[in-house]
């Protein structure tokens, strides 16, 4: 938000050479960090990037053509299933009967990702949810490359630091444009919780189509959520709060969760205090607006 202006200034002040230099330095730092297998936590300043990425553009995105072809094993290495060749063959026949897909068939996990943090930013929520939902696999999705890289390195360091307690093995991050590619990663009804924390507000009316909550996108959230699954939203922008409430309330697949139930949910407390944006708002003594929505059963097809 306020950051973009700052970035611009920085960019124009830099000569091309400086820029390259800086980029090189960051690159070196990150490589060193990774190669050392270090337990040192990454520092944000080495992962700076412009504040907004255009969700409509062709990024060099990597995504599987089909959720069955998503390779989760390197992201959650402690959850890789011992594979029985029998069930391997079965899924192939069901979903992708072609020979060529067998070659690409990724290793399976013992359980599916069930919780998604959309636009996870620097990963504060993921890190806090990991011990709170220890038996769930949690995934952060983020469109900005270096921010994703930061979270990846952060998780790696945390896993290393907490090797003995086996912590942070259930969280991972993925670079993705969720507005376009959710169905490539998740099957119908796979998720039980979706977090949308402090999404970019896109104040101008002509930018509303870029908002991560909309009538048509809500149908996609409904698709990946199982019935009675929950969408969690939080923002410090009253207009955006109203927008999100309006669009979820009015969507036939969702109902708003009552305030009592909302306040009793431990994830709500974590969402209020643990995301980077949430902390920033706290420091500025801003107000935070929370709303939860329950995925309803689909109506009978009449």
């Amino acid at each position, binding site marked *: 938000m306020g950051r973009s202006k700052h970035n611009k200034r920085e960019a124009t002040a830099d000569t091309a050479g400086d820029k390259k230099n800086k980029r090189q330095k960051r690159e070196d730092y990150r490589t060193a960090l990774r190669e050392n297998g270090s337990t040192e936590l990454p520092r944000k300043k080495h992962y700076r990037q412009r504040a907004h990425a255009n969700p*409509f553009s*062709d990024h060099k995105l990597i995504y599987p*053509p089909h959720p069955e072809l998503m390779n989760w094993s390197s992201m959650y290495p402690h959850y890789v299933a011992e594979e029985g060749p029998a069930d391997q063959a079965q899924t192939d026949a069901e979903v992708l*009967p072609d020979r060529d897909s067998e070659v690409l068939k990724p290793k399976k996990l013992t359980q599916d990702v069930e919780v998604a943090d959309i636009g996870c930013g620097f990963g504060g929520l993921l890190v806090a949810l990991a011990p709170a939902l220890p038996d769930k696999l949690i995934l952060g999705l983020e469109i900005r490359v270096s921010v994703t890289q930061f979270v990846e390195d952060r998780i790696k360091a945390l896993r290393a630091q907490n090797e003995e307690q086996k912590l942070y093995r259930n969280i991972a991050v993925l670079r993705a444009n969720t507005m*376009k590619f959710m*169905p490539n990663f998740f099957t119908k009804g796979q998720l039980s919780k979706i977090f949308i924390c402090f999404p970019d507000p896109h104040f101008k009316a002509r930018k509303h189509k870029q908002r991560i909550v909309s009538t048509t996108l809500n149908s996609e959230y409904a698709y990946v959520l199982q019935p009675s699954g929950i969408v969690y939203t939080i923002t410090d922008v009253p207009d955006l709060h109203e927008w999100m409430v309006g669009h979820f309330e*009015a969507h036939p*697949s969702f109902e708003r969760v009552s305030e009592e139930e909302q306040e009793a949910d431990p994830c709500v407390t974590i969402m209020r205090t643990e995301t980077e944006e949430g902390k920033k708002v706290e420091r500025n003594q801003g107000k935070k607006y929370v709303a939860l929505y329950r995925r309803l059963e*689909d109506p009978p097809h009449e």
Partner: protein
Amino acid sequence: MSLPYHILKVCGGVVFAARAGSIYSFNSDLEYISAWEYPVKQQQQTKGQEASATEQQKESSAADGPPTKRRKVESSQEAAPSNGSGDAEGAGAPETKPKKKGKSYTTPTDRAFVQGLYSTTDGRHLVAITGSDKTIRVFEHDGAGNLRLLSERQMPKRPCDIAITPDNRTILSADKFGDVYGLPLIESEDGQWSKETSAAQQKSRSATPAASQAYKPQANEFTVHTVRNRKALENQKLVLEQRAKEEKAEGPQFEHILLLGHVSMLTAIAVGTSPKNNKPYIITADRDEHIRITRSIPQTHVIEGFCLGHDEFISTICIPPLRPDLLISGGGDDELYVWNWVSNQRLSKTDLLKEAQKLAPEMAKLAVTRIFATRPKQINKKGDENNKSDDHTLVFVICERIPAIFCFQLKDSETTLQHAQTIPLPNGNNPLDVEYLHSSPSPRLLVAVDPNSITTSSTENTTEPAATTTTPSLRVFSLEQGQWHPTEQVIKGPEPSTGSSPEESNPITVQELQKILYTTESLRKTATDFE
């Protein structure tokens, strides 16, 4: 001066063929019947063109900023959501209204070209979409080839493809920005369509904000009982107010409802009826390799599934007649895919590139532009139509800039396309569209070709006016011993009436024409990153 016919639609015994923005009809012997001509006043003005263009620029600078700015908006709209960096701006940018005054052709896309022709199942209506003016036109068809324009509706964004619901009541328009709008085939005076459709859309619960314009919240303060419901109603109103505000600013003034949307550019839409429950579904395909299955009106908020597996953009989809659970899709991949769209399973892939390479071995990629499936009728000896259909479906495929028609067979018991024949086109002309005539004693194939595509490479930078030769742009093929052969049949179209023809006053160059006719390969993604 002749522009080629580039879109074909057979409707009953009548052949409709679009040339530029106009639609011509022919009987089953391919004799010319009549024409609906794109209004000249909208399209061009022969004299004083300079003056009116300047005047118009003045107008528009007052309305939407300096002309340069406006041109940028237009071009970014062309580019649509998933193409380059300026698009997001275009997504909500003010629309350029159709110009009433004279118009100068500054960009090729200013030319009116019919982008698609569709007919209702009863053949009583023909629907045409035109890209340059983003307009959907509905015609009444008297069954004998004569069209009467019933309505012209300019959509908020450029439609890419439309489908008509099986009840022939609703047009589903899929646009470049990923949205699907429903609008009544026949506009009702009292907004009956909106009332019924939006009421039905929200029956499952209180409401959907998807409805626009004529939409009113179903429940009112008196019917709401619980606190939650009341809150829901308030929010529903809030969304409607917001929406109304936006609509007022830039939305069209006719009945229409937003039904569903992708964030990716839509390229194709179809309506399928599931043999399982006999319910209609909306099938949408996008540039980002997705095929989405959604319940039809009134439950378009329910996504039933996706048919995923394409590696490149999808440009066209087709449900073969009498195989209602199958879907054939094609685009930038080397193969055609056959799906069971009801169960979201891919059933087979057919290597199309391999067939194309038999014509041009150096070919490395292709872009499918048409997949057309039909059921041949069995004709008995007397030449009467026998009701018993053949045991297979014929599938004809066109790829961009490949001068051939690829023919496949789909046997009733099978789910794999069998290559039957590759029909090379005379003079190396590129096909633009294909239709099938169930004529007796034997069927014929009608192909719209681009007569300017004779030479392979030299055409790119020529500014010559498009071919003025007599090279026919409609070709007829007949079936002899199971193989299609070209005939010498010449189709005599109407002579363009002098003075009224847009081509005459402002000749189109080959280059310009190519830009209009060959747009599919440009859907392929180029990796552009911000890093």
